[in-house]
């Protein structure tokens, strides 16, 4: 395309007569701007691009570069060099390997838990509940998003405390709560990110016409078979859209791990504990969530679900 791609109409000069009549500085600036859409665009973009393009992207690139640097073991100073040592360390040291895999496993478990809870809830809200109940539940699932992140982590810290509410609740059944650990961490993360899964699944459920379900049962399918063969395939994009949030948010989280995870270490724990002692290793570890999230997004895009976002 040879023509300039600037959209606004620059030929309209209807403003010129009145402007010429009483010309102030504002009018002069205005005239200059009006005649030059490229200048206006540059003016609009200069500051944001300096911030996001230079400062932010620059920082991400520098982070990636730092990952190839090394730390002087005596002075703890970062030494610019080129070494794959940090990455080799992540891949070969069993503790790091395990941490990376564990974190991905936790993020997947959180995603599955959210999806499993969102499906029946969405079914109830969209197809069984009265309109009033539906509206209340819709507010009910999004409301906790306003309560602070740490507040929610804290609430589960109280819940899982040994001798705390969960233990008390389970005591009559002869059970005790899981205590702080991986199970508590998965439940807490699922709690934190549940709205991101529940909302898209519920809205997708609402969009499925009732007669599809009727047709399915007319053909003899039991309700569960209908859900499995009719609803779930139609809900797939919603599940994937929700899973992007539940997965990626769980992957980067380490605060919850610190307060309800007991001794469970995640990628974030390793980054946080190395950021001052060994920045290059922290940087190398920081690339792990980026790579995993990008891979996940790529897979999601291939399935065509991103267009639903």
């Amino acid at each position, binding site marked *: 395309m040879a023509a300039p791609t600037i959209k606004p109409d620059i030929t309209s000069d209807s403003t010129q007569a009145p402007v010429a009549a009483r010309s102030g500085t504002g009018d002069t600036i205005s005239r200059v701007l*009006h005649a030059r859409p490229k200048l206006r665009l540059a003016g609009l973009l200069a500051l944001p691009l300096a911030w996001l393009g230079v400062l932010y992207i620059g920082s991400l690139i520098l982070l990636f570069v730092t990952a190839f640097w090394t730390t002087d073991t005596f002075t703890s100073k970062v030494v610019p060099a080129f070494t794959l040592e940090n990455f080799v360390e992540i891949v070969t040291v069993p503790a790091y390997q395990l941490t990376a895999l564990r974190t991905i496993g936790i993020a997947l478990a959180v995603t599955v838990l959210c999806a499993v809870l969102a499906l029946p809830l969405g079914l109830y809200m969209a197809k069984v509940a009265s309109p009033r109940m539906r509206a209340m539940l819709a507010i009910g699932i999004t409301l906790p998003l306003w309560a*602070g992140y*740490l*507040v929610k982590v804290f609430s589960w810290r109280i819940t899982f405390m040994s*001798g705390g509410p969960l233990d008390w609740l389970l005591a009559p059944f002869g059970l005790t709560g899981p205590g702080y650990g991986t199970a508590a961490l998965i439940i807490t993360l699922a709690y934190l990110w549940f709205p991101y899964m529940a909302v898209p699944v519920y809205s997708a459920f609402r969009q499925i016409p009732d007669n599809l379900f009727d047709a399915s049962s007319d053909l003899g399918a039991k309700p569960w078979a209908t859900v499995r063969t009719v609803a779930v395939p139609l809900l797939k994009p919603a599940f994937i859209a929700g899973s992007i949030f539940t997965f990626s948010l769980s992957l980067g989280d380490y605060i919850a791990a610190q307060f309800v995870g007991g001794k469970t270490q995640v990628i974030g724990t390793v980054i946080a504990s190395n950021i001052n002692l060994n920045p290059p290793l922290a940087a190398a570890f920081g690339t792990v969530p980026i790579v995993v*999230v990008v891979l996940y997004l790529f897979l999601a895009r291939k399935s065509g679900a991103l267009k639903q976002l």
Partner: protein
Amino acid sequence: MRLSRSAKITLRIFAAAVMAAIYLPLLLVIVNSFNATTSGAFPITDFTTRWWEAAFTNEGVREALWTSLRVATVATVIALLLGAMIAFALSRYEFFGKNTVNLLVVLPIALPGIVTGVALNNTFKTVLEPLGIGLGLFSVIVGHATFCIVMVFNNVQARLGRMNRGLEEAAMDMGANVIRAFFTVTLPGFKSAFLAGGLLAFALSFDEIVVTTFTAPPGTETLPIWIFNNMARPNQAPVVNVIAAVLVLLSMIPVYLSQRMTGDDRK
């Protein structure tokens, strides 16, 4: 769908259980803030308002709250300015690399917070500290503003897409210059979206912890950092509990307001 009675009841019980799991922990925070013992043992036997008094006179909490408010305010102002500028650029102009700019705005919120935090920490320490700009309140604000921009951008861009550009042209045809047309016609048109985006940005900044831990120097505490630092200390835990309870109660305000504004849900 034709569901049996028992299936419907099962689903109803399930929905009730999910709601209970969502709200009981939050309720627990409020109730537990009156728990006289610090061990967190349940059920609560002794109730006290001692922790509430302690929280209201706590210096650390006040300072942290003040820091949080300052950071969130400045970060929101930056986000409002930059977010609106990008929204205008993207919705009114066609240019090369438009999609890239769009991705650029969303990236800080799409990548895990820890990545943004570590990247900025690294830049401040290796590049900016030698230039005299080390970690401080400024770096916290930079970090917050970076992921707040998208909140304003999303809101303003959505509104601009629905606005009638003819009104602006009409104003200019009638003699208003670009600046005047902007303030009298364009700005009133997107003001509510602009403010809503600002509110979201403020809330996001006020609640942020991960980016803050990496961009704040030791000793600088926002409210979430204060909670973070004190949650595991047994003698401070009751005060943390009170702050958490206050935050739970405060979070009901926007919901109450939106309920009031829509109002007719009950009919």
